[in-house]
């Protein structure tokens, strides 16, 4: 049974300096509020894991929380580059950022292996690309029946996975629907998990397309309405596309980024 906590307590309890942290959510249900709380609590030396380190990780990287990034696509979707991510890679600002780079298929399967209690996953992937030259975490594997050579990637086992969902009940059973991405796998792959939700309800009413994560498989749940903004929570909010577009200018220069960070994250404070 998951504990019901405040966002501040949940992050303080579950996210530690030096942790491997996955914040997942595929365009939809991105846990921005939890990311901001990690920034406010000043976490350092995190290994950030995420298939699509978009604006949320641009913020964490620019704020200096990350030492390392494990990812498959780092951009501002439909807008362009992630300037804080590029500044870190190209100019080591605010510090150097190690990269471990995969494809979406590889990252998704790494979470699947983690959720399955297996040390690795097998896929048809990466073949012929330059990706395997830059990490030891992509290796060939032969089929013991046909001899065919495929690709293996090691399981991802984050110390903590953070996701956002629409609802939870008081037992901490979590319900999400719409595009649910790789969140189930990311939560089940992790040692600890924190789920922020739009609301906590007495009874989860079944919804078509729902994914339900039982409370006994989750560490903590925090009620954070709007916790996905500028991403969205289907049935609760719509994507703030203007924010994503405006991020390009905000993040392009260190000064404007720092000003944004001070005002919108530090001064804003944690949700009640």
């Amino acid at each position, binding site marked *: 049974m998951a504990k019901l906590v405040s966002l501040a307590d949940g992050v303080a309890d579950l996210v530690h300096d030096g942790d491997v942290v996955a914040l997942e959510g595929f365009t939809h249900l991105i846990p921005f509020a939890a990311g901001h709380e990690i920034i406010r609590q000043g976490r350092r030396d995190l290994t950030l894991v995420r298939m699509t380190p978009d604006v949320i990780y641009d913020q964490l990287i620019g704020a200096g929380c990350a030492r390392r990034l494990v990812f498959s*696509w780092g951009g501002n979707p439909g807008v362009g580059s992630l300037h804080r991510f590029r500044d870190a890679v190209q100019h080591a600002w605010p510090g150097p950022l190690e990269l471990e780079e*995969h494809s979406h298929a590889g990252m*998704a399967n790494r979470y699947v292996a983690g959720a399955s209690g297996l040390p690795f996953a097998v896929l048809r992937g990466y*073949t*012929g*690309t330059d990706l395997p030259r830059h990490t030891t975490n992509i290796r060939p594997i032969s089929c013991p029946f046909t001899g065919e050579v495929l690709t293996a990637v090691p399981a991802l086992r984050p110390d903590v996975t953070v996701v956002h969902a629409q609802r939870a009940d008081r037992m901490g059973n979590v319900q999400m629907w719409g595009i649910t991405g790789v969140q189930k796998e990311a939560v089940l792959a992790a040692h600890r998990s924190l789920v922020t939700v739009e609301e906590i309800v007495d009874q989860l009413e079944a919804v078509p*397309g729902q994914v339900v994560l039982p409370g006994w498989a989750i560490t903590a749940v925090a009620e954070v309405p709007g916790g996905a903004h500028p991403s969205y929570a289907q049935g609760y909010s719509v994507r703030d*596309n203007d924010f994503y577009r405006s991020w390009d200018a905000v993040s392009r220069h260190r000064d404007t980024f720092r000003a944004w960070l001070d005002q919108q994250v530090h001064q804003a404070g944690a949700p009640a």
Partner: protein
Amino acid sequence: MTDETSTPGWTADEMMTVAAARQLRDGTACFVGIGLPSTAANLARATHAPNLVLIYESGCLGAKPDRLPLSIGDGILADTADAVVSVPEVFNYWLQPGRVDVGFLGAAQLDRHGNINTTVVGGDYHAPTVRLPGAGGAPEIAASCGEVVVIVRQNRRTFTERVDFVTSVGYGSGPGDRERLGLRGGGPRLVITDLGVLEPDPVTRELTLTRLHPGVTREQRGRPPAGTSPSPSRWARVRHRRRTSWRCCARSRRRSTRRRSWCRKGDGRDHDHPAHRPPAQRRPRAAELPA
């Protein structure tokens, strides 16, 4: 960019979108990224291909948006899809086994054999001149889709002799490479640029210009009225022009011109290496395939 790209009546993006849409056959399944590919796929579905199956890597199978989605995870995709599946499932059960007929890819760099770079440009991998978003779904789309359509603006920075980083494999270093690598999809069938369409030479697998968009060539026969797309008849005229190789690096010069642009536009020469269009390569669906 040369002056030739400034065709009135439509933008280069619109032209690429229309050209891409026309490549999509009704009843096929198409792996769609956001932006131009999504616009093209939805244009095709709204016109000649009402049964086109749109697959988004966010897990939406058979999405039927009635407005253009603004992101790959737009709520309208989940709302209108036949099925919404997890991200692992869309890659493992749908893309990987070859169930998707066409994949659209963009490119920051593209080389003569259709290999794509969206990772780093210049410098060392660890200290690149430009850090790009990376692979995303592209390596496996390039590997597993029945065929790939690349959409890219054409300029010297983009069209390189060799890509600085192979993010997604086209034809590798030439004929037979895909087979040697065990890639089961057909590879790039078309490259749609702001100027025209390139196709792989059936023998050498080098990309070769086979069509120009209307309004692009010196021989252009007049421009369509402002604000309209090329009409089918105008399109047909372009399609029936003799196919023209656009490679400026002759075979004999290839070795000496490494790192030079192998494909330059507007160099004032007429290129007329005849190129045979490869046979239609629609791959059968997985359900039709033997094991």
